[in-house]
């Protein structure tokens, strides 16, 4: 494990340890603030606050002239804390922090007060009261500024290697992408062969390309690539470490051997399984009732029973119901493809597809559906109130569009079932300390904008482990996850923020509530050792474990500080003292 190396953001000037000398800049933002607040009154009230040695308004604090003025005032008035009251920290906090830094102040000695978005813009109709509110906000900012401390940022080394869990199309695609970038990749596959679920398919929609040739091509590329090590028949049994410095243990199922894999990033590409619909439509009892995946295997083996007069495919079996409420995404297209293959094989075969909604989104799939109808595949819509039933070798269904009851005799009944998470996905999730959803699919960091990331840094996600994915989607997500991993692997070091949680080890009683709550896996527990340990020898064991925060993983959200019963945990930059001072300042008027 690499060790943290602390670096001082700046050499702390002596002035920072002296009594606070606070400078306050109040921005007009053109008309946006000055048009609705009484700026001269604000400046005057701020000048009276304790420890404020300089206060001034600024036409545009963020303009070149405004920033120059801030830098000059820091030097001239020996300011060691700076407050800017202006627009919003969302766009401007980093700019002012950088300005302080340029003038020799630690960036965490800057405090932002939002008097535009949270004051002038929302109280445009009452200058007097809006000014009073702004005055209160600035007073709070100044009270906090007086207690600000310079903070350190840490940096962490990164191992330029990735571990990819799952050797299906997604896992292999991600491995190749990273290997082409020069990173070392270990690809861990549970089965004895690479290829995942696509290894069992016949042809692929919508092009009818051969699944096997795609798998073979990728397996060859992966096997021949000098940067990729493939471990088959292997399961991940242990995961330690954090971004940049993970250590996985891969357990070989056949030989019982364990292998340790160091990695800077991890990609989860464990795929999903087809739901086996035990107990539905006599599946498992009547050999004529099979799933789509089993039909694919019959097609691969060229073992379709003959004569085949009628095939009935039933969509949404085990999906869109009370227990599995989602739509399987891939099953409509699979059914359309296989229906067309059967129809092409023998045009005399009648193929019915009993569906609820045909899920053929996007530019290319709609035509595919049309092609199937033109080929003579019969699509019959049913409603969940009247699902198809089997009686005396016939499928009974109420055709909603025809308004008629149909009784269809069948030689083969093919059940379209959704992809479901692999049963071991929850176990793997626990090892990785990442969440799964109610079904067991892995849960990404943000549904809209971080679909390939986990909340825990350094771990990424792709393919049907996340949600049932079409083949092209799995390839896209795999390349994407590789790019996300490469943003870490391509760096020698990664940096933390200074505003992270810290632990007072004397107060911590090791209850672990903080670690349970931390969304980012940033807290671990270590056993305290007795006495000073200057020679690097193991100290005497104490049996007392305390929390330790990994500053690179910590996002400074403060949830741990809230839950800590002994106040051992503090969010730097938002300490209890600072927040209390703000509250007192707010109530002081």
């Amino acid at each position, binding site marked *: 494990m690499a060790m943290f190396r602390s670096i001082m953001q700046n050499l702390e000037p002596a002035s920072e340890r002296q009594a606070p000398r606070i400078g306050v800049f109040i921005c007009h933002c053109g008309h946006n603030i000055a048009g609705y607040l009484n700026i001269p009154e604000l400046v005057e009230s701020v000048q009276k606050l304790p420890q404020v040695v300089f206060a001034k308004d600024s036409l545009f604090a963020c303009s070149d002239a405004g920033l120059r003025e801030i830098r000059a005032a820091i030097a001239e008035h020996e300011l060691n804390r700076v407050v800017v009251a202006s627009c919003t920290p969302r766009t401007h906090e980093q700019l002012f922090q950088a300005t302080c830094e340029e003038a020799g102040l630690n960036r965490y000695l800057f405090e932002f007060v939002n008097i535009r978005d949270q004051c002038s813009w929302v109280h445009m109709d009452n200058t007097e009261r809006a000014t009073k509110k702004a005055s209160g906000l600035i007073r709070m900012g100044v009270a906090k500024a007086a207690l600000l401390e310079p903070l350190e940022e840490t940096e962490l080394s990164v191992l330029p290697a990735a571990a990819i869990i799952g050797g299906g199309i997604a896992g292999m695609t991600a491995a190749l992408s990273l290997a082409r970038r020069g990173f070392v990749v270990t690809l861990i596959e549970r089965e004895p062969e690479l290829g995942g679920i696509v290894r069992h398919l016949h042809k692929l929609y919508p092009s009818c390309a051969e699944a096997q040739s795609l798998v073979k091509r990728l397996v060859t590329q992966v096997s021949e690539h000098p940067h990729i090590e493939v471990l088959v028949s292997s399961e991940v049994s242990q995961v330690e470490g954090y971004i940049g410095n993970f250590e996985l243990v891969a357990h070989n199922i056949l030989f019982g051997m364990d292998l340790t894999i160091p990695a800077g990033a991890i990609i989860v590409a464990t795929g999903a399984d087809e739901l086996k619909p035990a107990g539905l439509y006599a599946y498992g009892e009547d050999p004529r009732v099979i799933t789509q995946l089993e039909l694919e295997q019959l097609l691969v083996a060229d073992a379709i029973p003959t004569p085949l007069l009628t095939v009935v495919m039933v969509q949404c079996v085990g999906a869109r119901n009370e227990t599995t409420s989602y739509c399987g995404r891939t099953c409509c297209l699979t059914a359309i493809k296989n229906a067309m293959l059967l129809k092409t094989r023998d045009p005399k075969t009648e193929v019915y597809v009993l569906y609820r909604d045909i899920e053929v989104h996007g530019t290319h799939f709609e035509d595919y559906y*049309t092609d199937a109808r033109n080929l003579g595949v019969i699509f019959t819509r049913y409603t969940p109130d009247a699902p198809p039933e089997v009686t005396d070798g016939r499928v009974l269904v109420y055709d909603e569009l025809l308004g008629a009851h149909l009784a269809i005799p069948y030689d083969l009944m093919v059940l379209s079932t959704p992809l479901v998470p692999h049963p071991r996905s929850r176990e793997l999730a626990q090892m990785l300390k990442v969440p799964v959803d109610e079904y067991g699919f892995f849960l990404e960091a943000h549904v809209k904008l971080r679909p390939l990331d986990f909340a825990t840094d350094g771990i990424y996600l792709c393919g049907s482990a996340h949600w049932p994915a079409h083949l092209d989607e799995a*390839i896209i997500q795999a390349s*994407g996850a590789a790019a996300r991993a490469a943003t870490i692997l391509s760096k020698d070091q990664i940096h933390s923020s200074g505003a992270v949680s810290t632990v007072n080890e004397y107060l911590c009683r090791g209850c672990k509530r903080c670690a349970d709550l931390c969304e980012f896996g940033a807290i671990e527990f270590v056993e305290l050792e007795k006495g000073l340990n200057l020679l690097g020898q193991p100290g005497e064991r104490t049996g007392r474990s305390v929390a330790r925060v990994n500053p690179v993983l910590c996002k400074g959200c403060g949830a741990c500080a809230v839950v800590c019963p002994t106040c051992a945990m503090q969010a730097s930059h938002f300490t209890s003292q600072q927040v209390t001072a703000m509250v007192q300042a707010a109530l002081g008027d």
Partner: protein
Amino acid sequence: VKEVLVIGGGIAGIQAALDLAEQGLRVHLVERLPSIGGRMAQLDKTFPTNDCSTCILSPKMVDCARHPNVILHTYSEVQSVRGEAGAFVVETVRNPRYVDEDRCTGCGDCARKCPRQVPDPFNIGLNQRRAIYLHFPQAVPMVMTIDPEHCTYLTKGKCGLCQMICQAEAIDFDQQAQETKLEVGAIVVATGYDFYDPTSISQYHYHTYPNVITALEYERLISASGPTGGHLRRPSDGKPATKLGFVQCTGSRHVQHNRYCSTVCCVHSTKEAVLAWEHNRDTHSYIFYTDLRGSGKGFREYMDRAEQKYATTFVRGRVAQILEDPEQNPIIKYEDALTSRPQQLKVDLAVLATSLVPRFDAPQLADTLDIELDEFGFVQTELFSPNDTSRPGVFACGCCLGPADIPQSVAQASAAAARAAEIALG
């Protein structure tokens, strides 16, 4: 330092730029409009979590602008591309804003004084903006732009009020178009989509009936930063709209218009119905659909919730015609698929879920880049290499490839970034 070009500053372009920049590549992000943000900036909330669109987009825009490896070329276009994968030479032109980007702080004092009012394209003409304007309140860069077609100083040499007002001395009427030559290893195309103009579907009377609007117009109306401050008011009389009819597949899955399914509309109409109910509990929404499609993560559950808790009725049936009564209430005529009988429903507001179509200038851009388009006019790629265009070294992501939702666009953007990095660094 190796350089890459990203064309289009919507969420896909932003994500691709950030992923490339974080890998140490220098990224030139070229955006045609005055601000990055793209379509997502125009949306109110996003399905299925009802996250505020701008609130989640805005930090990404700021990250992009602040990233030391990203160079923003806003209000700019790509003019030519020569060379080959690993060594492209790209010429771009930056259109004159008539505002000095380095001096302007975006305070908007100039726009408050500008006497010239013009329909605001960001709000699809639902309100007026001035001839000097901020593209939208959270624009990045936060810089004003002068509309050369409507500014009376630029057209007639009269006025110049903005120049007198501006305390930052940022107005520059002499600004010229500026050409830049870039040398890049790879190109990512992320130019997004347009909405189909429903005027050609004459039976829906989009232009003749004021209370027949498009989904994008609806998004602006229900947005707190939109022209009505988020109050869902009818364009005809400003009355609150509480009975809503959503017309799915407007221009989609239709041989005369667009054969394909636009993918996102079933869920976005569901979201729009949910939002209306959250604004006003008296609202009831009717969604007229062909097939109800929602197979993305959490979508089906979202639709079920809309039906159970948010007064949303899903009606299977294609809308044949929209008429209007004397109070200008739209009357939706449809065939009920269950009974096969013609039915009608009077609503306060009819919202057309129009198709997602290629950008108006997609053929021109394809020509400039020398890449193939598919039969619909979207960028052509192959099943096994879904982000590689027909020209090596040029990759694509987001809705220029075809309709996609936000997470799909983001995943595609990261994928295109991976491919571009492989080539640019290879």
